[in-house]
């Protein structure tokens, strides 16, 4: 399995500012994912961050708005830049970890962001 921690767990920010969310995993993993869950909505994939390569963004998400770092196999950051109230969401880090048979995707506890 994989145990994921995220910092901060929640934050309240002013519009126009940026927030960096950290994701730490207790084991080395190749694939890390960042999701957004807007109020009352499902999870939407923002980007996939593999160590040693540029993050791959999903349609509707761009690097200038959501820059991602992946410096090693256990850590990643997601920055929400130039925030607006529409960015108020829960941001989740996820990893694909190997099991005895196949893989399983594990999720962090999430970062609840409120933009005023």
């Amino acid at each position, binding site marked *: 399995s994989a145990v994921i921690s995220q910092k901060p767990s929640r934050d309240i920010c002013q519009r126009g500012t940026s927030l960096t969310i950290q994701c730490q995993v207790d084991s080395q993993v190749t*694939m890390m*994912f960042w999701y957004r869950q807007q109020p009352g*909505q*499902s*999870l*939407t*994939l923002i980007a*996939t961050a593999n160590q040693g390569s540029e993050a*791959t963004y*999903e349609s509707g998400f761009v690097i200038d708005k959501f820059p991602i770092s992946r410096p090693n196999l256990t850590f990643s950051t997601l920055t929400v830049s130039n925030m607006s109230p529409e960015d108020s969401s829960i941001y*989740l880090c*996820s990893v*694909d970890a190997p099991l005895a048979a*196949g893989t*399983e*995707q*594990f*999720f*962090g*506890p*999430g970062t609840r962001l409120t933009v005023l």
Partner: protein
Amino acid sequence: AQRVTQPEKLLSVFKGAPVELKCNYSYSGSPELFWYVQYSRQRLQLLLRHISRESIKGFTADLNKGETSFHLKKPFAQEEDSAMYYCALKSYIQGAQKLVFGQGTRLTINP
């Protein structure tokens, strides 16, 4: 395009009654489907996957390719089953994989 549909946003049943959470998918390839659950104040966690053909906490889900469905069932609901349930499809596009989630169903088990 890949898509997962959970038609019921809310579902409420009485304890001991059968429960079925519906999930339909759209995917051109061979699907890999999952059910995730999020209990109150806990993180999202995997409940079961179709390839394992397992029963977890009394829940089962059968992949029906003809109906493109992966409904989650339990014959006798328990109060501790109250949670948010998400159906998810793992898709592979140009060597990259991702999970596509349905909208989720909030299940409430009444005593």
